[in-house]
């Protein structure tokens, strides 16, 4: 199953970033029996005309790092188990045809939009006088003058016009052609801004009306299971230094949300519409940190990760785990009435740790994230000292040169730097998400509020030697890794961590 994920706007990129972290940790969609789904492939498509948006760039870099690491581990194989198990491909990678020219990027090419001012995009100057008057009623002057390369500055009325052109793009045609029976679509967007709030219904509309487009799989597309994560206000903005600049105003967030929800109800999710099979609502009003004001042209929109984004990143997994019969009528294939989901912490607090999540969330993320964090500590503090001993000497050998490979550098520097940045941002946001103790490299104390079990002589110990011993044991007479030391390292650690976590920690899952 391919899941095409349309990550729209800044929130789309930020949620996608959290999702990559979960995928890297080994979080996978499971079936009703808790077994990981097979042949899952994620195809993120980022839609954001604001290309200089730092959150978008960070997510794109992370996707690239993920792809580099995963390909070295599992090649093109969709099925894997362990860290980086879920295959994530760009649209170009899944499009076999070379007829449609595509950028090899996760970012949707919006050249038809982003190169223009909105005024020019709608050919305002060539309109007749009554149409200009009508347009001026619908759009404020600053909206008409808006350069769309900075996004839609919180104006869904711009987005709804501009993004309608997406259906004519090469990317959309390629997507429509490659979409196959059994594939699904998921949208990630905020509802209180401009790009996401407008993009979600526009693209859903174009998908459901696929009969009008030239695509061989349009029949599948029209009945495609569609899920959406709609993020309600979860942050606020500081006032602009320029008091006159009110292009984005906190005060509008709730009103815009109400209006958009009403619109979604009428077009997407309401009774008889069923354009979306499942929708996930998330919001955190009142527990938000004000971010620096930026309508797109003030700073680089480098916003810190937030609990909502991490929780939102689980929605696509939940959606994939739903059976076809939960989403569509088995007889006709038509979408069933939209299933709506909300999310709540088991314990509402500003200081969130693993214990604050409900059982379902803990089951999904606790062990994978703990494994990844222990891997981070092990690679930063342990591996270098044990090269030449134990499992590193079993074939395929992990030599000193291994630490200079592209795989190792991307994993330990690029990826883990982003991982720590992500954890740090989660921690220092208004909702302090403390999954792991900041800066703690002692495995016994690294997991927040989780200690090791009592043993005969005090608490059981977890350190690099414990991992080394377990990996040594697992590696003995293990011929599974062929000539792939990268896979050997990651798989041995993943398997060892499973046992060590079970045996030695007082776990919270």
């Amino acid at each position, binding site marked *: 199953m391919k899941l095409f994920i349309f990550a729209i706007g800044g929130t789309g990129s930020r949620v996608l970033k959290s999702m990559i972290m979960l995928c890297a940790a080994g979080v996978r969609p499971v079936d009703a029996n808790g077994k990981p789904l097979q042949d899952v492939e994620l195809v993120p498509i980022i839609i954001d005309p604001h290309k200089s948006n730092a959150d978008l760039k960070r997510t794109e870099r992370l996707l690239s790092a993920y792809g580099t690491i995963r390909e070295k581990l599992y090649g093109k194989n969709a099925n894997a188990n362990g860290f980086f198990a879920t295959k994530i491909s760009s649209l170009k990678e899944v499009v076999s045809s070379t007829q449609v020219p595509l950028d090899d990027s996760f970012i949707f090419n919006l050249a038809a939009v982003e190169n223009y001012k909105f005024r020019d995009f709608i050919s305002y100057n060539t309109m007749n006088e009554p149409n200009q008057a009508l347009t001026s009623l619908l759009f404020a002057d600053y909206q008409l003058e808006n350069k769309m390369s900075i996004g839609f500055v919180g104006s869904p009325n711009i987005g709804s016009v501009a993004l309608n052109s997406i259906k004519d793009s090469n990317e959309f045609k390629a997507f429509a052609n490659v979409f196959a029976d059994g594939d699904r679509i998921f949208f990630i967007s905020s509802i209180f801004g401009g790009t996401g709030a407008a993009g979600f219904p526009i693209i859903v509309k174009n998908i459901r009306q696929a009969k009008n487009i030239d695509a061989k799989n349009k029949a599948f597309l029209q009945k495609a299971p569609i899920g959406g994560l709609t993020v309600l206000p979860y942050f606020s903005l500081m006032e602009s230094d320029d008091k006159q600049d009110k292009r984005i105003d906190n005060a509008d967030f709730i009103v815009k949300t109400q209006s958009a929800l009403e619109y979604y109800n009428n077009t997407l999710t309401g009774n008889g519409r069923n354009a979306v099979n499942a929708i996930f609502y998330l919001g955190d009003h009142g527990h938000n940190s004000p971010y620096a004001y930026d309508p797109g042209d003030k700073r680089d929109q480098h916003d810190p990760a937030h609990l909502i984004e991490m929780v939102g990143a689980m929605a696509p997994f939940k959606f994939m785990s739903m059976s076809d019969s939960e989403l569509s009528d088995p007889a006709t294939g038509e979408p069933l009435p939209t299933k709506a989901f909300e999310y709540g912490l088991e314990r509402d607090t500003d200081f969130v740790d693993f214990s604050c999540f409900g059982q379902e969330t803990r089951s999904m993320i606790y062990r994978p994230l703990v494994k990844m964090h222990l891997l981070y500590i092990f690679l930063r503090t342990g591996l270098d000292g*044990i090269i030449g*001993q134990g499992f590193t000497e*079993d074939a395929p050998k992990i030599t000193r040169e291994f630490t200079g490979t592209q795989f190792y550098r991307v994993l330990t520097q690029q990826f883990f730097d982003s991982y720590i940045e992500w954890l740090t941002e989660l921690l220092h946001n208004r909702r302090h998400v403390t999954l792991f103790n900041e800066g703690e490299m002692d495995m016994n104390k690294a997991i927040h509020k989780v200690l090791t079990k009592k043993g005969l002589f005090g608490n059981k110990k977890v350190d690099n030697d414990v991992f080394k*011993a377990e990996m*040594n*044991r697992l590696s*003995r007479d293990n011929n599974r890794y062929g000539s792939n030391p990268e896979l050997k390292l990651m798989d041995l650690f993943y398997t060892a961590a499973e046992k060590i976590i079970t045996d030695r920690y007082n776990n919270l899952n």
Partner: protein
Amino acid sequence: MRDKVIFLIIGAVISVLFWFFSAVLYEAIYYVNGFSQFMYNDGAYGIVALITIAMTWGMAAIYYYLINSVKFDRWYHWLSMLGITCLLTPVVCFFVIDARMDGLDYGTYSFSFVLHNILVAAIMFVIASFSMRWWSSNCRHTPIPQ
């Protein structure tokens, strides 16, 4: 796996051969009239060989399967076990030989003989190590990686 079993079999065969030809070997490396004749007639060479085999294989087994620690898996840890073996084996052999002397005054020769036996013990420890190390979870690459 097959290679490892072959190493074990070769080690075992060498040890048996050593025990079987212990008198010839020991007289080749240390021969003194009177003392050597006593050792030969008493069958003490075979006993010393058995002790040497037991000590070296036993110490190797302790290192690879009882200690078997990631904190004790470097070549110098193995070398220290070899050193201990080379220290203990002559001591045990000396007292066993001395107990069999029954009033004969070959103490100096016994001492000299067991010192020569250190070389044999060292070689046997290496053979025992390379025979059994493959199945150790933490020390199978000690002293030399596979």
